[in-house]
């Protein structure tokens, strides 16, 4: 019974791969990384360009619409008046393009900070105005934010961010919380941060020129950065939106030397002291 039937050993390697699994892993990871980085560069570039084509009046209209949702803003305080006077002094020395304007307001916050948003709005924290800085140092900070507005960084990076997240969701959104897709997302974010840092470098460059035009020298330009660097510890440049503080200070020194701008000069005391 059952003579003649045999049970040979089935050959291996047909239904299961003989290859080393790391080979597949390396190929896929490498391919995914290359594609993500290439995509990010392409989409980011397009988004950035598209943003700069949006007229400044549109920015202003957007901000007015948003601001009208809140209670109407109070008139400028005395400190805010002084801020705007200083800003106008810088703009007089280095005029903004046609149709652009800036308005500065103070924000209650202890961390020294300043940021520019759409429509030429610049917000400066109480912490920054309370720092023992000369007018020149404060002017550098303000000129930096004005430079962001001048170079249309805000609208461009908003447009870039929007296009990026749309694309990423369209392509990878179908993946439900896969570890691999989150790694890919992280690679995209890290690449995006390099763009943000280059915007900051350009703003530093334009701000230094404004400072020189206004005062005839760039004394105290780095005072703000040096004060902040002394307080905080190290930050990892790879993962932050701004270049390393010491690098910024060095870049400023180098640019001054290239253009022959004097680094010493008469320092105006701050109007806030």
């Amino acid at each position, binding site marked *: 019974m059952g003579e003649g039937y045999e049970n040979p050993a089935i050959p291996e390697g047909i239904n299961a791969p003989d290859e080393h699994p790391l080979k597949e892993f390396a190929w896929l990871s490498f391919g995914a990384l290359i594609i993500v980085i290439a995509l990010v560069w392409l989409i980011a570039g397009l988004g950035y360009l598209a943003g700069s084509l949006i007229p400044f009046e549109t920015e202003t209209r957007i901000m007015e619409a948003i601001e009208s949702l809140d209670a109407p803003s109070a008139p400028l305080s005395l400190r805010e008046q002084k801020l705007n006077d200083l800003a106008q002094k810088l703009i007089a020395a280095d005029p903004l393009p046609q149709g652009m304007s800036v308005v500065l307001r103070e924000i209650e916050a202890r961390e020294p900070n300043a940021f520019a948003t759409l429509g030429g709005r610049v917000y400066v924290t109480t912490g920054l105005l309370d720092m023992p800085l000369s007018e020149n140092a404060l002017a550098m900070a303000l000129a930096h934010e004005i430079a962001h507005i001048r170079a249309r960084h805000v609208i461009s990076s908003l447009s870039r961010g929007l296009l990026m997240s749309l694309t990423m969701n369209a392509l990878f959104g179908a*993946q439900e919380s896969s570890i691999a897709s989150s790694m890919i997302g992280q690679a995209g974010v890290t690449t995006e941060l390099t763009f943000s840092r280059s915007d900051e470098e350009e703003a530093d460059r334009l701000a230094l020129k404004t400072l020189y035009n206004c005062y005839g020298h760039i004394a105290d330009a780095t005072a703000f950065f040096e004060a902040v660097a002394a307080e905080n510890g190290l930050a*990892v440049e790879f993962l932050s939106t701004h270049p390393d503080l010491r690098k910024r200070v060095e870049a400023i020194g180098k640019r001054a030397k290239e253009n022959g701008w004097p680094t010493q000069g008469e320092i105006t005391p701050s109007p806030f002291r």
Partner: protein
Amino acid sequence: METAIFTYFAAFFPFISIAGFLIVGFLAGRRAEKSHYDSIVSREKRLAAILAFSEKTPPPFDTPPVSALVVGSVVISSDYFKNFTAGLRNLFGGRMRSYESLLDRARREAILRMKQEADELGARYICNVRIETSPITQGGGNQIVCVEAYAYGTALVKRRR
């Protein structure tokens, strides 16, 4: 100096932890797979005397045999490394090599366990062998976390006179 090291560690922690999981998953998974395959091959040799047919009709016996349903069932899980590679594979398409070996092991193991049951019953033939596999997913996501293979058939034991 310590703060520098700590800052870099904190910043890169997500990458470090994922790399760590990948390494552990790869090494542990590879070891488990190798030892499982060794066990499978040696048991297939040992149980080669038991014949399994997918044919529905049993072969003719002198006297009607004793029949019994024999079942082999196994649940095998994939490791972090396999899941990660499969996730990347989802983007590009193609053979999911990382899961192919998982399923191959599971099917063969299920058949072996079925043959084991038959062997303990004293059977030499199993007919109408069927195999079913089903994934067991854990909640969120399309990730296959483990797979169950289920092999069953009718074992025929020669009746002693």
